[in-house]
C-alpha cells in the first residue's frame, strides 16, 4: 500500500456516475491511523473529441496545488500515480464532503440556507483562480474569443450538420467579438456540477480542472451561466442558483478586474454554442465507432436545448 503503508487496505471502491472520458472512483483507505475517504481520477477513453483541449492529470495536479496556494478551494492532492501503480494516467485526491448534483443544489431544501450565497462565492473564487500564475509544467494552451469561435465553427463544419440556429449564432457572435483583454488562467469548466456545495458553508471545492487554459476571464463567468447547467431553474442565471449581479460583485470584491455583464453574456452565448457543437462531436465519436457508450448518441439530442437557449440570448441581446 503505497498511500498508507503496512497494514492498510483499500476498501469500498465505487465508480461514480458522470464523466465519459474520465473514470472517477470513490474509495477509502483503512489503516492503523484510521480511515481516509479518497477519490481516484483515471483517464479511461483512448480518444475523446474534447481531449485535444484537455490537460494531463499531472497538469491538473499542478493546477490544483497552484490554485489552493491562492486560496481557491480544490480537493488536496494525495498522490499522482506513476508506472509502479499500474493505473495508467491517474491521481488520488482527498474526498471533500458536500453535494455535486446540480438539481439537488438548486432544489433540495437542505441548500436553502446557502443557495443565495453561492453566486457571490463563485465570483470570489473565480477572481482567486484568475490571479494564479499559470504553472509552467502544466503547458496550458491559450485561446481568446476569436480563436474559440473559429475552433468550434471548424468542428461544426467538419460534422456535416445543418443547424440554422448554430449558423446564425456563429455569424452573430463573430460580429459581436469583445475587445481583447489581458489573458488569465481559467478553470475552463467552472459550472454547476463541477462544484462541491456544503449545506452549511456553500462552495467547498472546485473539481475537474483538466480543461484549464489561458484566456478571457469572462469565459469562466459566462460558462457557469449557460442554461444547460441551470438544472431546471432558468430564472436564476448563475448555475440555476444565483444572480448575475452577485457573481460580478463577488468577482470585483475579491480583486478581479471588473467585467461588464454584456461580456459575460457574450461568453454565455458562446458557451451554449460550444456545448451544442460538443454534443454534435460526441454523437460523431459514437457514429465513427470510436466510443460505443449509449450516452454518446443520446447527447447528440441535446443540440436543440442549446438552440433554444441561443435564440433566447440573441433575441434579448447581449
Amino acid at each position: 500500500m503505497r498511500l498508507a503503508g503496512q497494514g492498510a487496505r483499500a476498501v469500498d471502491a465505487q465508480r461514480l456516475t458522470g464523466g465519459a472520458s474520465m473514470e472517477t472512483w470513490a474509495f477509502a483507505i483503512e489503516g492503523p491511523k484510521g480511515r481516509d475517504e479518497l477519490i481516484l481520477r483515471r483517464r479511461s477513453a483512448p480518444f475523446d473529441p474534447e481531449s485535444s483541449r484537455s490537460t494531463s492529470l499531472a497538469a491538473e495536479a499542478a493546477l490544483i496545488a497552484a490554485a489552493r496556494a491562492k486560496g481557491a478551494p480544490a480537493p488536496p492532492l494525495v498522490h499522482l500515480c506513476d508506472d509502479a501503480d499500474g493505473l495508467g494516467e491517474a491521481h488520488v485526491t482527498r474526498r471533500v464532503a458536500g453535494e455535486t448534483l446540480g438539481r439537488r443544489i438548486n432544489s433540495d431544501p437542505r441548500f436553502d440556507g446557502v443557495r443565495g450565497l453561492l453566486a457571490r462565492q463563485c465570483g470570489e473564487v473565480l477572481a482567486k483562480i484568475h490571479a494564479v500564475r499559470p504553472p509552467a509544467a502544466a503547458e496550458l494552451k491559450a485561446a481568446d474569443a476569436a480563436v474559440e469561435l473559429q475552433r468550434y465553427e471548424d468542428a461544426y463544419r467538419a460534422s456535416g450538420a445543418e443547424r440554422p440556429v448554430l449558423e446564425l449564432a456563429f455569424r452573430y457572435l463573430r460580429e459581436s467579438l469583445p475587445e481583447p483583454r489581458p489573458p488569465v488562467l481559467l478553470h475552463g469548466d467552472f459550472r454547476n456540477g463541477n462544484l462541491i456545495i456544503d449545506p452549511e458553508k456553500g462552495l467547498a471545492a472546485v473539481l475537474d480542472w483538466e480543461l484549464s487554459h489561458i484566456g478571457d476571464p469572462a469565459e469562466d463567468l459566462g460558462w457557469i451561466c449557460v442554461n444547460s447547467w441551470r438544472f431546471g431553474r432558468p430564472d436564476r442565471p448563475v448555475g440555476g442558483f444565483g444572480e448575475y449581479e452577485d457573481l460580478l460583485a463577488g468577482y470585483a470584491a475579491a480583486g478581479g478586474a471588473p467585467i461588464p455583464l454584456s461580456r459575460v453574456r457574450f461568453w454565455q452565448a458562446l458557451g451554449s454554442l460550444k456545448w451544442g457543437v460538443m454534443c454534435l462531436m460526441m454523437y460523431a465519436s459514437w457514429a465513427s465507432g470510436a466510443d460505443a457508450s449509449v450516452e454518446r448518441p443520446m447527447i447528440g439530442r441535446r443540440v436543440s436545448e442549446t438552440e433554444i437557449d441561443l435564440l433566447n440570448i440573441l433575441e434579448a441581446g447581449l
Partner: protein
Amino acid sequence: MITHPKPQELTEAVARWIEQIRPQLDPRNAFLARVAANALAAVTRELELSEAAKARAIERLEPILGHGGAYEGLNWELCEKLRAGDLGVETPRLMAVLRANVLDQLAIDQPGYKHEGA
C-alpha cells in the same frame, strides 16, 4: 405490411422492461439504463411527432425563403443564407420561425427542458 404492434409499442415495451430491471443494477449501469430508457422515449416521440413537425417547418420556411420544397432542401438553403449573412436577427419574422421550429424539435428531444423563454 402489418399494423400491430406499432413501433411506438415496441419502444415502450423495451423502456418499461429497462425500468423494471434498473433497481438491481450497479450505479453506473443504472445511470446508463436511464439514458437508454430516455433514448427509447425520444424515439417514441419522434415516431409520433416528427411528420407533423416537418410539415409545419416547411410551411414556416416558405415565406422566409420565397418558395416551397422538401424540408431537407429548405433547411440547407436556410443554413447557407444565415452563414452568408443574407438572413439574420434583423430579418422580419425569422426569429419567430426559428423559435417555432426549434420548439418542435425540443418537444421530441427533451420536452421537459426548462429555458428562459418557457
